[in-house]
């Protein structure tokens, strides 16, 4: 390669590397804020500003959903299989909301440590499947392996 071209390539390489390092450091410093939601573990540990509006993400614990027939009031337990947070919500839930589903709830933590949600969003994973296949899998007990991504990861902290 022509030495002048090599020089230009090096210069661009250095500039880009420097710029990536700056962006990388900024992102690293901000990483807690870039996260869309807190885990129940973080909420239980008190890492969450009290009274501030936050998002909490996790799985809806099976058997924890209780609905008030007359007022649309729903209460359920959000879990990452390490800690639990009870969520109270009044309103219409997304179609995908069900027990065992990953969800993200926006709201404030009240004095009892419960999350009073204003908005509940459903999360889903990249495991798309036809209904018949899912039925067969459920019968064979495979479905526990799905949605693993919502479990608390020690390495993230």
């Amino acid at each position, binding site marked *: 390669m022509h030495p002048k*071209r090599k020089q*230009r*390539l090096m210069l*661009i390489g250095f500039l*880009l590397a420097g*710029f*990536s390092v700056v*962006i990388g450091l900024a*992102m690293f410093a901000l*990483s807690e804020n*870039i*996260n*869309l*939601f807190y*885990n129940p573990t973080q909420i239980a540990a008190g890492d969450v500003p009290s009274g501030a509006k936050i998002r909490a*993400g996790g799985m809806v614990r099976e058997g924890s959903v209780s609905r008030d027939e007359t007022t649309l009031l729903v209460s359920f337990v959000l879990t990452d299989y390490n800690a639990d947070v009870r969520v109270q919500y009044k309103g219409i*839930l*997304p*179609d*995908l*909301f069900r027990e065992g*589903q990953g969800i*993200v709830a926006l709201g404030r933590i009240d004095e009892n440590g419960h999350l009073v949600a204003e*908005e*509940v*969003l*459903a*999360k*889903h*994973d*990249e*495991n*798309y*499947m*036809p*209904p*018949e*296949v*899912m*039925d067969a899998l459920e019968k064979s007990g495979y479905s526990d392996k799905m949605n693993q*991504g919502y479990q608390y990861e020690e390495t993230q902290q």
Partner: protein
Amino acid sequence: MKWTFFHKLGSPRWFYDIAGRHYAWLMMLSVVLLCIGTIWGLVFAPEDYQQGNSFRIIYLHVPTAILAQSCYMMMATAALTGLVWKMKIADMFIAAAAPLGAAFTFLALFTGAVWGKPTWGTWWVWDARLTAMLVLLFLYLGVMALRSAIEYSDMREKSTAILVLVGVINIPIIKYSVEWWNTLHQPATFTLTEKPAMPPEMWVPLLVMVIGSYLFFTSLVFQGVRNEILQREARKSWVKKLLATEGSTSD
């Protein structure tokens, strides 16, 4: 290392001929694949056990999202070759690709929003993936705006290339955002290393759509670069001969 192919690529006249020979069949094949993929995805592919039929939006969402990022990588490669080797044709690639990238990014965001409403319960959420994708759209629009703001010159080529190269940092952020941070968006559907987490009757039509979109994009870039070449080489004798001997409708 042999650079002959590389230098040939830099010759606008050579590329004009090669692209002219291939854009038509590329376009035809891509239309066939896109039609097959769309019908396959909408009619024959099974619905998802959780999302039902709204899952079918994946057949438009994933190909456009992949293309939006690939298009940027192509532009970044062109920008680098343009800056280092002073290859005039590199800038033409950027000129041809930027509006395409903007269109694909817009479509990925739009289909994502429409898909998000019934599945997540919201059109938009400021999570890392969605925000980074929006930044990509603004990068494309920025490149286009920069080009239209400056008259054709060496300075325009350089400043465009630098903007494109700086923006390339956004691509790994888009790709890994779903792994580095908590997002509402799910992890990638297709990766090069792993089997997709869905059965073949779901991912085969998706693959058809992705390949069809790539061919579509390639054909459009070929045609766009040809138009740029004609414009910029207008005073060259080969262009004069070409247009003198051939009618305006034929090649």
